[in-house]
């Protein structure tokens, strides 16, 4: 992970500092899309086909674009590293900071690790979480002394507990150690884990002003994706359904199409979700023709066109939905879990193949022994959990 270059003046002007969590508002869907979406979801609710795939197949095939990284390169967090630095620069420089602890609550599925990357770039010490199996052992690990000089970074608070009757001891000790620390402490936490810790431990009393990035709505996504696409000059991103250039805007800055507004709303304003949806929606000429037939679309001479497909609406099937939701909820709270840890935090009785089904359908993915929710499926997961009455972030 290399240190990011210093942002230019134009880039710096476009940066948005983090804001209080309670001020975060998800981007709204364009009106016409909202009506269409309402009827689509109503139809899905009434129909609720049984036994079908969890996620539309087209969404899961992944991109077949060879040069995808050239037009939508990682990292998935966009300008967040610079924005985080912009937010905390004065606080880090202060001799006796107020508040001593800054909490950054980020939505789940952040596989890049914004807080870790920032700490590494700036050379701040990172307090690594112990392994999860040690959290519920007879002799749980001891929290190290937080007496180092400078800024101590705890990037993932969600890794310090397990939703198990013995799994809260260490995080309690950690919060007590943070409270006792006199110097800077920067804490990162997944928004679902934060909702849980607020309720169970009253952690919000210790860190009452969590911060979050500003939402990635249509204009922010357009700016970001345009910057990424500049690496491959001469490439146009045209909507498969009408040929409109997704990144183009007229002289007044009005976009040719509201696709990115819709993408911002679909991705809940989360950059890594939007980035994955964006990459998953891109098709080469050949791929587009294969999927939609040989329809001639607009495009200037010498222009290389990438076709942008509309993201389908995802929904869980009726079968075993309650167990599937319990699994997904546990994964969101913990960020990732092994199968054994999952069984420790779930009340499921008897054998279950839910995880295998969710994996096959693309709602979760396995990295080694660990299972986690896919960023691409997160909006659908969140919507289903909310509709089923689960506590959300």
């Amino acid at each position, binding site marked *: 992970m290399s240190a990011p270059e210093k942002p230019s003046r134009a880039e710096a002007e476009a940066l948005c500092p983090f804001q209080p969590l309670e001020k975060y508002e998800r981007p709204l869907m364009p009106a016409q899309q909202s009506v269409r979406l309402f009827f689509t979801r109503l139809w899905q609710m*009434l129909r*609720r086909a049984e036994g079908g795939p969890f996620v539309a197949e087209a969404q899961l095939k992944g991109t077949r674009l060879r040069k995808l990284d050239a037009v939508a390169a990682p990292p998935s967090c966009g300008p967040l590293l610079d924005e985080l630095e912009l937010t905390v620069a004065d606080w880090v420089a202060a001799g006796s900071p107020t508040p001593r602890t800054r909490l950054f609550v980020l939505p789940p599925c952040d596989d890049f690790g914004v807080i870790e990357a920032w700490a590494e770039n700036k050379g701040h010490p990172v307090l690594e979480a112990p392994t999860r199996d040690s959290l519920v052992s007879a002799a749980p690990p001891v929290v190290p002394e937080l007496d180092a000089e400078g800024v101590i970074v705890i990037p993932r608070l969600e890794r310090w507990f397990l939703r198990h*009757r013995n799994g809260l001891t260490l995080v309690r000790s950690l919060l007590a150690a943070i409270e006792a620390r006199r110097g800077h402490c920067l804490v990162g936490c997944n928004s679902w884990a934060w*909702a*849980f810790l607020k309720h169970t431990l009253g952690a919000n009393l210790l860190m009452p002003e969590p911060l979050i990035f500003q939402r990635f709505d249509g204009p922010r996504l357009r700016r970001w994706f345009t910057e990424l696409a500049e690496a491959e000059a001469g490439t146009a991103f045209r909507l498969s359904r009408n040929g409109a250039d997704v990144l183009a805007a007229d002289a007044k800055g009005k976009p040719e199409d509201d696709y990115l507004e819709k993408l911002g709303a679909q991705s809940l304003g989360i950059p890594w979700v939007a980035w994955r949806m964006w990459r998953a929606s891109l098709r080469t000429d050949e791929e587009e023709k294969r999927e939609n037939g040989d329809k001639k679309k607009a495009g200037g001479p010498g222009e290389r066109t990438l076709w942008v497909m509309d993201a389908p609406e995802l929904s869980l099937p009726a079968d075993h939905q309650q167990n599937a939701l*319990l699994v997904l909820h546990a994964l969101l709270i913990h960020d990732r879990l092994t199968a054994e840890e999952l069984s420790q935090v779930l009340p499921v009785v008897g054998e279950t193949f839910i995880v295998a089904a969710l994996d096959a359908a693309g709602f979760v993915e396995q990295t080694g022994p660990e299972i986690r929710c896919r960023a691409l499926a997160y909006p659908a997961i969140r919507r289903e959990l909310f*509709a*089923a*009455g689960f506590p959300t972030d």
Partner: protein
Amino acid sequence: MTAAEQGKETAAKLINDLQDISFLQIGLVIAGTWFAIFLARRILPFLAERGPSQFRLFFLGLEPILRLFLLAGAVLWIIPIVFNITVQNFLVIAGAASVAIGFAFKDYVSSLIAGIVAIFERPYRPGDWVEIDGDYGEVRAVGLRAIQLQTAADSTVAVPHARMWTENISNANDGARTLMCIADFYLAPAHDAARVRSALQDVALTSAFLSYEKPVLVMLKETLWGTHYQLKAYPFDLRDQFSFISDMTVRGKLAIAEAGAVEVTAPAAASETPLPKKISG
């Protein structure tokens, strides 16, 4: 015949002439009302089950209200078709109805009236979990004369609305989406109560069914047969209440054993026996 005499005769006539009564219209009103009620009874529970859980109790509660208005509308529509409505005739009809009801349909009408009162007072609504005279279950349907409870043992119990006049009705959720669940534990008195209490608190806090909006409480009291712990918490969906209690009980037993305490058993009847008063002197 003068106009005054004609008017007097018209006023005295209780029922319209048969040739003036449109039986087709009456039939259509009855069929239309029946069909509308039939649709409401099918569609609203369907929407309640398929739609977002936030609206479940709203859809379920809408059905009896809608039915009441549909029936009232149908009755008000049909009466002027059949009867010649004047103040005098109204009193005659009311008197005759009172006699018939008083002798023949007293209990039935009492239940009907209690059903109407129940719609406004709301001692129970569809989707609520109530206990009436020892029967605990979910109110599946609120009919004209009775409600249907579905118990945890999957039995359906019909309870006439008239029971409302004489019985206490215990409503566990009262229209809310959650209700308090209690897991009971009885321990031998010699144990570290603070440790057990703390362990039980974590048992509830780490349950997958827990509602974040409500508190978790652990109550204990000494009884003749041991220490009685009550772990009280709320699930995020009241339909999970039995799973939630089971989950807290299973994990609570493990936590108690880990805390070095021992469970005891006691006859069910004894659990309600108060402690004897201390006799002084």
